């Protein structure tokens, strides 16, 4: 039954996003504190691994532009566990061409697999990636099929577009998935203990 509800929700959400212009709200920049995985995990209010289903930029009443992101959640490390999440990230480009960019804030694109470290939602509902670009890691598959995490644009050059596996990028920092998960769990446990 839960599966059916989930599928229905997914279908509905996809339908909602169909017909809207594809958005590439790859907003970026700003100044961020350098943070390692434990620091990201300790700081984040919501830590999710998931698949980006769709994105939709919109303008708020106060004129600010934000992007609505529909995420199919694969794993929740911190925060309420939900199958689907709608996130609001600042910035984006509206269909009429007007845009807001926050240099340093990483964008999300439909089709991406990501691990996100997010702040608590502001009054407006907007969340920020912790440490700006550091709060987003791309989830990729290595040759043997094992998951890995990268701090790079996983959709371009780094991955085989057919298999989604790492094709190149040996110079890129590829983080071991299990190690990162262990660091997250340890950091969260330490935070709760305090």
């Amino acid at each position: 039954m839960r599966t059916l509800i989930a599928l229905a929700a997914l279908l509905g959400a996809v339908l909602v996003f169909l017909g809207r212009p594809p958005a590439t709200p790859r907003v970026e920049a700003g100044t961020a504190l350098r943070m390692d995985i434990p620091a990201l995990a300790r700081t984040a209010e919501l830590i999710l691994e998931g698949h980006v289903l769709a994105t939709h930029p919109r303008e708020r009443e106060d004129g600010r532009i934000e992007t609505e992101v529909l995420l199919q959640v694969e794993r929740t490390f911190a925060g309420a566990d939900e199958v689907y999440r709608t996130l609001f990230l600042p910035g984006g480009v509206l269909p009429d061409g007007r845009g807001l960019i926050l240099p340093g804030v990483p964008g999300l694109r439909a089709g991406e697999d990501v691990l996100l470290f997010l702040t608590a939602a502001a009054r407006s509902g907007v969340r920020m990636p912790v440490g700006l670009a550091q709060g987003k890691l791309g989830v990729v598959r290595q040759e043997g099929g094992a998951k890995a995490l990268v701090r790079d644009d996983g959709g371009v050059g780094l991955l085989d577009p057919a298999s989604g596996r790492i094709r190149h990028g040996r110079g890129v920092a590829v983080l071991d998935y299990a190690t990162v998960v262990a660091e997250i769990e340890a950091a969260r446990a330490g935070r709760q203990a305090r």
Partner: protein
Amino acid sequence: MKILHALVWGAAVALVAAAVTAHVRLRNPSNENPLVWSDPQAIGIVVNSTGSADVTDGSDVTAVRLAIQDWNEVAGSDVQLVEDDSEAAMARTDWSSSGVHLVFFDEENDSGYFSGGGTVALTPVWFYSSGQIVDADILFNGSGFQFTTSGVPGRFDIQDVAAHELGHLLGLDHSGWAGATMYPYVDTLVIEHRSLSQDEVAGLRDISASASFATITGRIRRAADDSVVRGAHVVARDEFGRTQGSILSGDDGRFAIVELDPGTYTVYAEPLDEPVSSYNLGGGFTIEVDFEPALYAAPAVLSGGDSAALGTLYVDADVLLNLGRNSDRFPVRVVAGATTTVTIRGTGLFTGSTIEASDPDIALGEPTWFGAQVVFSATVPAGEPRGHVDLTVTNAGGDVSILPAALEVTPASPQVTDVDPAAGSSHGGQTLTIAGADFHAGARVVIGDRIYTDGAPGGATVVDEGTITLVTAEMVAGLHDVVVIDPSGEEGRLEDGFQAADIPVVGTVFPIAGAAAGGTAVTVTGQDFQPGVTVRIDGVTQAQIEWVSAVKLTFAAVGGTAGGPYLLEVENPDGGLATSAFAYEDQPDPAVTAVDPASGSSGGGETILVSGANFSSSPDVLFGADPDTGLGGTPAALVTVLDSSTLEVVTPAHTAGTVSVLVTDPSTGQAGLLEGGFAFEGSSGGGGCRTVPAAGPPRGRDVLGGSWWIALLLVLLAGRARRMRPAPARI
């Protein structure tokens, strides 16, 4: 007309977009148009006057202004930030309004962007589809972090962060240079982002150049299959091994490094992976990193505004070697004349590898390889110019990784050891001599909310490496650090090195001499007199001191030994001290008690009698002198001394009105004044009392303003001068 304007604008943007591939500009993610202001030569900016809650002496605003100054002084670009420093503008907090481009410390997370999460500052940039920037504001995360202008541990340097964010506001994205101001990460120990790298210089020239510069073009392809490399980070370094320019190759693999000065350049391509990656860039870029760094075999030789076409650079497949992680602290500062131990993380950093700096003057010590990091020493000869140097690692198999602008060469930090004098008036005008070491041309001195730039009008003068002089401008009262900032951004600081106080300033003392027996009514005018002020003459506190206002006080001289001039001190309760002079005479002060008749024609020429006491044998008589200062007034047409208590005076022509009558003894400076003593009447009158200041000191006796009159007094009383103590400003 609007449509025409829009079309022209759109065409201009299209031209820019076609020509620009240099370094990293912010782009519209949807169409890759570079973001640019419609009038980059006059970009308005306002610094919110509230500033940071962590800085209370006004130096927060000063730090932002220093950053603005740095961007405005980029050679070869006419991009200018124009600050509106009006009180009304600086009071604005509505940063999201398109009508103001605000630098704002968001102490309560009103923006909603800082709900806890490692973001130190942000610059939201609004734009149109064309790429025209319509608004941009800088928000400091005051709710999540603390800021400093004085190196307080654990706080972020405001100038450092502001310099970076201003780059975004101007239209620049993050840089692939580890040592650039636009490097994405910061921590509390870093201030090197204050100084702009050549990457930022080229970026600003790219936005709007004020001269012609040279260009290097080429194309990056993979050797394996001849495919083009998109988003390759292509870097140029000069013949001295210093990093000078960079770009990202386009979707066709072509690049054009623009805005270069004449010179000989080595050009290479490297993947933009760590420590800066595509995640750090805004939209509109395609970044491929699956290749090994490679250098063009031949250098590019540029003269004037020429272009050099280097052709195709073939790169090999990716290698398991990488130098630099975003967890490293960049820039890595290496100091001229010193040896610095450097640790850099990476991949494949194993024994058998070698590491070298692109500037051969910099000697690297034997490295220690740990696989995931390398540790080595870097020795920079004394006198090396500031700038950035690449590091290249080559492993045992010959694979290469290059970290552009990894090292930032700076001179030693300035040291400030003494400031003389250590205190002065907040009204400025104080000549200061700053002593220390490692002062260099182009340095800036910050005292309170004021910036003094070497060589600039009203600025500072770097006399030599150990001396800077300046004349203070009006500033906020209080204790201020004296900060000397090198062009590299490094600074030296003397904490509480200068106290600017509302130090009283004596403008006039009237009269300038009184009876040795005492009782002379004296009025002192000036500035910043405080209630409770005391007055001393020759160290003796005077009587009946009355604070009338911040610009006026009166007292009754207690008298003393005839002679002088003696030191007259005016001291505020907070210790602020001003000095002047006063003399005592053996004879009593003249006094004016009556004038008969008390009125006459404004045309003058009428004879009247002035009664009083103690008139000298050759007094001066003035009509309309200022009662507080004795200044101004019109001399009598004729004065005849009938006796020591009666003068026969012929009135001068004077504007109608009731005026004072002043009798002075020009040989001593003693004076007696009757306020409202005489009324000039006439058809041209009706304007009431009006004094006419004299163009100069009439007959050399009654003007006390400025220092010259002290000299005059000294002349008058030559031979009688006694203990004239030095008059240091004291707080």
